């Protein structure tokens, strides 16, 4: 696996953004991306919803005592997620009501996302609070950037537009509008992303 080996702040940021990017490398929480991130505006809604729920859930979960048994800890994370969901949905309904409607079932499903469990269980017990928050913030930024990039590419290829503006693409591949097309495109972008990382690593080693 390609990772920055140092445990410094720079290493944590590099890992969160690039080498362990939640979407392109780890393949986490991709279902809402494949289904929802059809265009840039939908992706923005998705990103805001994900960031809000994930950040505040992880922030509050960090105060869960470490000596509680694993099963109970997981249940507590989910309860915290559910508590964060209520104000988040009220805030987002005020900010972008149509976007929240479009998110549908995927919005509440963020509460139980694998991202929250993995970050809370792997990082909280190993790092200091400062590094932990640095990791969370940059992981969320990495996720958001990947979703926005994916949605922009998908919108260009599937609709021939960017942010709703026609850019005069010679071909529009309508199959990419469907979840199966999105899944294939995400796989291709992830493959290219990992190839670039490997290439950079090889060049640096030389």
């Amino acid at each position: 696996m390609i990772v920055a080996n140092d445990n410094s702040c720079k290493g944590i940021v590099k890992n969160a953004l690039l080498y362990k990017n939640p979407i392109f490398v780890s393949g986490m929480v991709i279902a809402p991306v494949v289904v929802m991130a059809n265009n840039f505006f939908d992706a923005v809604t998705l990103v805001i919803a994900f960031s809000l729920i994930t950040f505040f859930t992880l922030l509050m979960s960090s105060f869960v005592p470490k000596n509680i048994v694993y099963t109970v800890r997981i249940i507590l994370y989910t309860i915290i997620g559910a508590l964060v969901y209520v104000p988040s949905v009220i805030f987002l309904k005020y900010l972008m009501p149509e976007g929240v409607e479009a998110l549908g079932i995927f919005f509440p499903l963020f509460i139980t996302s694998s991202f929250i469990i993995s970050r809370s269980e792997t990082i909280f017990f190993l790092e200091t609070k400062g590094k932990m928050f640095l990791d969370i913030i940059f992981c969320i930024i990495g996720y958001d950037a990947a979703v926005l990039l994916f949605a922009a590419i998908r919108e260009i290829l599937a609709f021939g537009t960017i942010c709703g503006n026609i850019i005069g693409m010679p071909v529009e591949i309508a199959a990419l509008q469907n979840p199966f097309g999105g899944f294939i495109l995400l796989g291709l972008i992830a493959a290219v992303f990992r190839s670039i990382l490997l290439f950079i690593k090889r060049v640096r080693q030389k």
Partner: protein
Amino acid sequence: MNSKTKTDFSIMTDMLIVLIVIASMSVYYYGMRAAVVFAITISVSVATDFLCCKLRKADMGKDLSALITGITLGLMMSASVPYYAAVIAAVFSIVIAKHAFGGHGCEIFNAAATGFLFASLSFTQNMLTYPKPFSEIPMTSVVSPDVLSSSFTSAFLLTESAELSLIDVLIGKFNGPMGTGFVLLMLVAVVFLIFRRSVSAITFFTEAVILGIYAFVRYDNDIMSVIYFFASGMLLFGMIFLSCDYSIIPKTKSSRFIYGVVFSICVIIFHSYSATENAAIYAVIISSPIGIELDRKALSFADMIKNKKSVFHKVNKPLNHINETLEILEKNELEK
């Protein structure tokens, strides 16, 4: 030649010969534009395959599968298909359906069928409208819809009858994909391929019998409708070149039979409950992973039977031949 000794290359050569004959007929029916579409699908498939092999550092060897995919893809398309649609379908076939799964021999879907399906979902209007055979088709990338019409299949699905003579159906003189309607030629091709053991006779006949019975029942024993049924929706073509594809078909005889049944059931379901024109394509894509799984199950079942037999044999041997067994045991002890 025994099927066990028949090599991949030999099977692919047989397929290639048949496909080239059908492609030649298509060019005769639809003119130069058909030839250009074939040139595009073949060259893009082969070039993409070469690039993917280079990137994966895989040996191409005597692999003709990209060439076969290119021709098969061309045959499934309308003669008026936009050139870019042909390019995208060919790239998708090779990159996603072939190399993403590990290259030749590791595919779980028929590459040509997958590419066609992707293109037909992306460019529905262009992929499912067809020019008349022997008509003038402009050489521009996108053909004006004025010279195009819906397929014979779509009319047959709507009305359950067609105003075509038997000869026209047999020689494929109707609106549809370039190379999937030549019923007579397909029948000759399947006889040749079965005789050469390049397609599975078990799978083909299973499908033919089940779908034949279904068509007879569905169309009130009307022979003409049964022929229309097999000629339409790429059915006969799909049965020969897609469902019996050597790279995705199960290896054991029992699995091939079950695979044929699964394919037929899928066709019947799509034909009965959906308005899709090309039920055979969807059926191939759904049934091919099942076929691969059938092979695994057949092998594990065979292993289980073998183990049970050996256990049964061990248990019964002393009961039936006690003396003989005691002798063997004594012999073993002495050897020790």
